[in-house]
């Protein structure tokens, strides 16, 4: 940027305006959702109450009292945290092996893993449901955690592989010469060196797990149901109760928005795949 000695008008005024414009555009739905969550269901659909209305906590109280918000929230935490840990537990060694001891098949394995993300989830929905019911795991944490881990593994392995690739092979080999075994290489050298990358990956996987809806809605009823299910459940057949729905949605995405806010830097690094150093 220092190359542009005489800053153009665009870089002084245009760029910030553009950035704020795009930012607000993305932020607006969230803002609107939060706003609506403080309206009664009746106010929520009245044009005259678009901006000016009497705020109420009714929706939130209703949610915690009648819909058992905390149970869904607890399930979301359990499944997202466990799935993230499990995913890392598998993907760190996998990415390590592929980055530092590649074989002729490594490239193909990576591509194959990515290709599983191209499979339409709907194609395996019924087999999955029958399978889950058949082995008695339907609506259990184990099932949700397994499914969340499986759908996030390809992304996690790819991200970590990209980070690990940036670590010079010599350093790992120096470790071998210094008397470290495979586990030691991961613990003493790889993890401390790729800490930023691993944290970004963990954060992203956690967010994906938390937000996952397709599977969690369909593979659970009550016991293992997550916040996604709670939102889904408030899509009443007799019409949408916007106030209530907004409150539930706000409460569901709230934790993740706050988390994302505090970890912005990590996230940006994670999404640019280590391009920002």
């Amino acid at each position: 940027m220092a190359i542009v000695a005489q800053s153009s008008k665009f870089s002084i005024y245009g760029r910030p305006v553009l950035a704020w414009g795009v930012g607000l555009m993305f932020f607006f739905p969230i803002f609107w959702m939060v706003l609506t969550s403080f309206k009664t269901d009746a106010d929520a659909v009245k044009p005259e109450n678009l901006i000016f209305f009497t705020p109420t906590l009714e929706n939130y109280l209703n949610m915690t009292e009648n819909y058992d918000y905390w149970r869904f929230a607890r399930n979301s935490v359990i499944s997202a945290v466990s799935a993230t840990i499990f995913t890392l537990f598998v993907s760190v060694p996998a990415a390590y092996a592929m980055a530092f001891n590649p074989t002729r098949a490594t490239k193909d394995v990576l591509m194959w893993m990515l290709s599983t993300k191209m499979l339409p989830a709907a194609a395996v929905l019924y087999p999955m449901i029958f399978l889950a019911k058949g082995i008695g795991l339907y609506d259990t944490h184990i099932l949700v955690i397994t499914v969340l881990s499986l759908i996030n593994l390809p992304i996690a392995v790819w991200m970590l592989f990209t980070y690990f690739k940036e670590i010079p092979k010599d350093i790992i080999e120096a470790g071998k010469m210094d008397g470290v075994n495979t586990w030691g290489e991961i613990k003493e050298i790889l993890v401390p060196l790729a800490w930023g990358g691993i944290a970004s990956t963990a954060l992203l996987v956690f967010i994906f797990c938390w937000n996952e809806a397709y599977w969690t809605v369909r593979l659970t009823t009550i016991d293992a149901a997550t916040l996604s299910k709670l939102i889904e459940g408030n899509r009443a057949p007799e019409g949408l109760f916007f106030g209530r729905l907004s409150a539930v949605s706000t409460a569901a995405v709230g934790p993740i928005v706050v988390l994302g806010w505090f970890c912005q830097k990590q996230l940006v690094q994670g999404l640019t795949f280590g391009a920002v150093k």
Partner: protein
Amino acid sequence: MGRIVLDQVSKRFGDVEVIPPLDLTIEDGEFAVFVGPSGCGKSTLLRMIAGLEDLTSGNIEIDGENVTEVPPSKRGLAMVFQSYALYPHMTVRKNIGFPLRMEKMEQAEIDKRVETAAQSLNLVDYLDRKPGQLSGGQRQRVAIGRAIVRDPSAFLFDEPLSNLDAALRVGMRLEISEMHERMRTTMIYVTHDQVEAMTMANKIVVLQAGRIEQVGSPLDLYHKPQNVFVAGFIGSPKMNIFSGPEAEKHGAHTIGIRPEHTDVSMTEGTWEGRVGVAEHLGSDTFIHVHDTGLADMVTVRITGDISVKHGDKIFLTPRADQIHRFDAQGQRIA
């Protein structure tokens, strides 16, 4: 202790045979240098000894024990990499102490050894810095420190000086030689620089395309190169090598004469030519001579200074006892 024996060791990468089967013995306490042009397989051979590369066939023994299947961490060897390969997240102290910590040595003993190593390498003031805050030469010392703390049975060096500038390189070369004189531990040192090989080695192993061309002491290689490749590779400036009628006069297919073994006169001599470029080093003068009818260019080396100009007529006389003779296969004729 560190006697290393390679027995019919070979290496393929896919379909490419980088190292055809070879035998080699490095005696305990020896300073062995693998030298050869870039890409000839020096690093591959060293990495096989280290255990970082699997063998395609053959066996490696260290002190009589077959270590072919033993992982690098259990071979008791220390390696210094061209890139230094320090752990960027650890301080110098931690870097040097790392192999000891991996041996589960007591912290007090680790501290003591790190301190001693740091003193001998002039690193005491830098112990609490990270590698990123050090110069190239200092990083190199840390890498050496990390290798010496744990008394390995042999040291492996892969072109450790090639990332340093010329002045530093000469200094470090001396330090490593000094270290070998002091410790008398086996060292295997890889370089493409024949000057490093000549100055440091007890035993030079000349490699070309994965094959051993000759094994011997520096002076063996200088005085009795076994083939044309070694003759041309060892020595600076390079030996003059030519075939044709002049070689046949000496009963050989090819002959070679070193620049320093040719006498020069402006009036008479065996071969006549014209001065191309004269390089004046003060202590020596290198004269590149053209139009001799022997080769495109013949180089001679004269002690001291001599005043010649471009285009001067000049006469060269090879010292008869210093002419190297080779047959049609390029092998030395005794």
